[in-house]
């Protein structure tokens, strides 16, 4: 089961490594990112962030989907991290029954698109046009639980409620 599909523009980092595996009860993290899949140095820096008792896999979106064709993968408890909502949407569309919840934690702060062209939700979610479109279609499906929770110590807030607040 994918205990959590997290959208975080920093992928694996200190906050995640220290708290989330314990909070979710998982010892496996898949980083699904096409750029990281092709960049050895970025892979090393991501591995640096992984605690010793946690296993990590770095895969493209496509390879992540093929990975879940394995029945063993479907039953394993794990967490997936992507760095944008468009990728999250692709995973949700293809693995709808495996994902327990989507956590939109940090988005769009380092993608090079000017802030003026974005919609902000709180201080850590900045949505470009593409990201907003992906989020809207994610929220259309009532079966998918979409929340915002940066660290386990924060309470999980429904994305829908945050958008209403503006």
């Amino acid at each position, binding site marked *: 089961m994918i205990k959590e599909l997290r959208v975080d523009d920093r992928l694996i980092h*200190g*906050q995640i490594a*220290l*708290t989330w595996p*314990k909070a979710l009860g998982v010892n*496996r993290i898949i980083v699904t990112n096409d750029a990281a899949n092709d960049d*050895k*140095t970025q*892979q*090393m820096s991501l*591995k*640096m962030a992984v605690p010793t008792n946690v*296993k*990590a*896999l*770095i895969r493209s979106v496509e390879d992540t989907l093929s*990975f879940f064709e*394995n029945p*063993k*993968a479907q039953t*394993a408890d794990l967490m997936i991290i992507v760095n944008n909502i468009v990728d999250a949407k692709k995973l949700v569309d293809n693995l709808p029954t495996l994902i327990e919840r989507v956590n939109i934690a940090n988005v769009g702060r380092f993608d090079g698109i000017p802030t003026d062209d974005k919609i902000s939700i709180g201080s850590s979610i900045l949505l470009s046009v593409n990201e907003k479109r992906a989020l809207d279609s994610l929220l259309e499906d009532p079966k998918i639980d979409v929340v915002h929770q940066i*660290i*386990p*110590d*924060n309470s999980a807030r429904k994305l829908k409620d945050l958008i209403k607040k503006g």
Partner: protein
Amino acid sequence: MRKILIATHSTLASGALNSATFLIGNQSDISIIDAYVDETDYTQKIDQFFEYYNTEDEYVIFTDLFGGSVNQKIFTYKNNFEFFLITGFNLPILLEIILYNQSLTKEAVKQLVENCRKELQVVEVDSFESIAEDEESFL
């Protein structure tokens, strides 16, 4: 209950607490002393930390420099109180102590310190083992 005090020369203590809170939230009872930032006597804050000393609680104090005056001062409280004193602390050991979810023994604290000592390192490209993790070993 675990009670933690971070005491340093100037604002490292409040900075370390800010970083820890950013990373893992407010999880423990943590006090700080930014010593010598003004004329006030910081040692009063050590007394405050121990004011309601309870032998059922665990007390851990972090200081910045082994030979520094802050560490020297706090060391003298060993005459009257039981507590773990960790000096030359880094952020990893602070986080480990906050997150440690069993009762702290002397052995446990020493082991955590040994583990976190290794976090101080020169990072080089070739200091990594094979990074190609396959799906079999992942599952």
